[in-house]
């Protein structure tokens, strides 16, 4: 029965786990076991055709997966995925740099509450941030700032064009926790840090 085969295919495709015969019998309770079995046999045969997918038996159930021979392509898909998007950690780091620049790695880690050294490399590779100088403190850490590409990407004329935290709360209808929007030294949004005197520009 062709419709039964199609239903089983849809079920196997959509199930987060391999679908066992037992599960199928429960889901298709009005169908006799033999009918289900022969539908599965027919489906298996369907998947013998050339194509990118295969029907495998795993953990006592059935599952549709890509064929082994294409694994390299699939792997590549996940590698390439990172051109348009950023991980949450990278985006947060970028946000801190955008609003607080110039800022050092320890300072970013301090605001985010986690170490972000690895992410900085990604952002530099993507040309969204660059090293803008060194801070005149112990260890002379690099200071990071956003690039021209960053401005272009976000459609900003210059960095003062970034929406303020206050704008966000007003327009999105949520309140910022008290103190955050205030220009306290730890939370200040503005760009007063740009070209501050503790910086040593490179070249």
């Amino acid at each position, binding site marked *: 029965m062709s419709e039964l085969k199609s239903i089983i295919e849809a079920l196997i495709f959509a*199930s*987060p786990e391999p679908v066992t015969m037992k599960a199928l019998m429960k889901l298709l309770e009005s169908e006799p076991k033999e009918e289900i079995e022969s539908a599965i046999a027919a489906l298996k045969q369907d998947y013998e055709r050339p194509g990118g997918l295969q029907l495998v038996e795993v953990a006592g159930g059935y*599952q*549709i997966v890509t064929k082994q021979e294409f694994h390299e392509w699939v792997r590549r898909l996940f590698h390439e995925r990172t051109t348009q998007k950023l991980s949450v950690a990278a985006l*947060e780091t970028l*946000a801190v740099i955008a609003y607080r620049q110039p800022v050092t790695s320890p300072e970013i880690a301090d605001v985010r509450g986690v170490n972000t050294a690895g992410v900085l490399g990604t952002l530099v590779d993507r040309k969204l941030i660059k090293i803008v100088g060194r801070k005149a403190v112990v260890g002379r850490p690099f200071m990071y700032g956003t690039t021209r590409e960053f401005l272009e990407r*976000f459609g900003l004329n210059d960095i003062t064009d970034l929406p303020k935290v206050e704008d*966000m709360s007003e327009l999105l209808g949520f309140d910022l926790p008290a103190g*955050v929007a205030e220009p306290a030294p730890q939370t200040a949004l503005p760009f007063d840090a740009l070209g501050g005197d503790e910086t040593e520009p490179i070249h």
Partner: protein
Amino acid sequence: MAEPRQLEFESIIGDLPVHLQNFDGPLDLLLHLIKKQELDIYDIPIALITRQYLEYLELMTELNLDTVGDFLVMAATLIHIKSRTLLPRPDPAQDDAEEDPREALIRRLLEHQKFKAAAELLHEKEIARSAQWQRPDTVVNDVVGSAPEPEVEVDLFSLMAAFRQVLERAKQRPKVMLPPEQIPIETRITQLLERLSETDACGFEDLFEDVQTRSGMVVTFLALLEMIRLKLIRVFQQASFGAIRVYKRAQVDGAPTFQGMTHE
């Protein structure tokens, strides 16, 4: 036996349009009134519709609904239109640029209606789409080995939202208490001596007037103890729990000297 009570309640609002929560704003309510009476949207009997609208508004006010505000402006508009219909029409030859408020209202109603319909069509699309099931992510984990890191689209909003997220998280973290800028005791002693030089004596509490922080108070107190030790001041209390007064002392021979004093 809740039924009779409910009937009673329904009879109160029985001749009123509908359940209150059904309306999302004044345009919604107006459309309902028009539809219910099968009125022509292009030729609304303004007197009738205004009366019904106001009745409804009155009920809302009685029930203390907090959305009344949105509805009041529309009531004013309706009354305005109604009053205009009572006035003699201006000379049609005199084409003034101002739009007829009635036409403006009709336009807004149609517009609103159109988007309600659009929302319905969207909803149909949504239902059709939700009947299409996607491959669950777990299957790909099996293929690729590990779950790829969740990623977000990079745009201005996500950037702002990320920053807000960071700030909120920072807010929730217990603050590291940095030792506040401390005034050295020597500096405080000099300050207090200056203060006492203006008056020979003053109240103990008065010497704390200019400090706000706890640490400032501690420093002031330590400074006072030091000044007593150096015999720079004397402290008197009238009675138990009485006011404490601080007197400046002339320098006493043989007393340890205070290094920070400049006039020595």
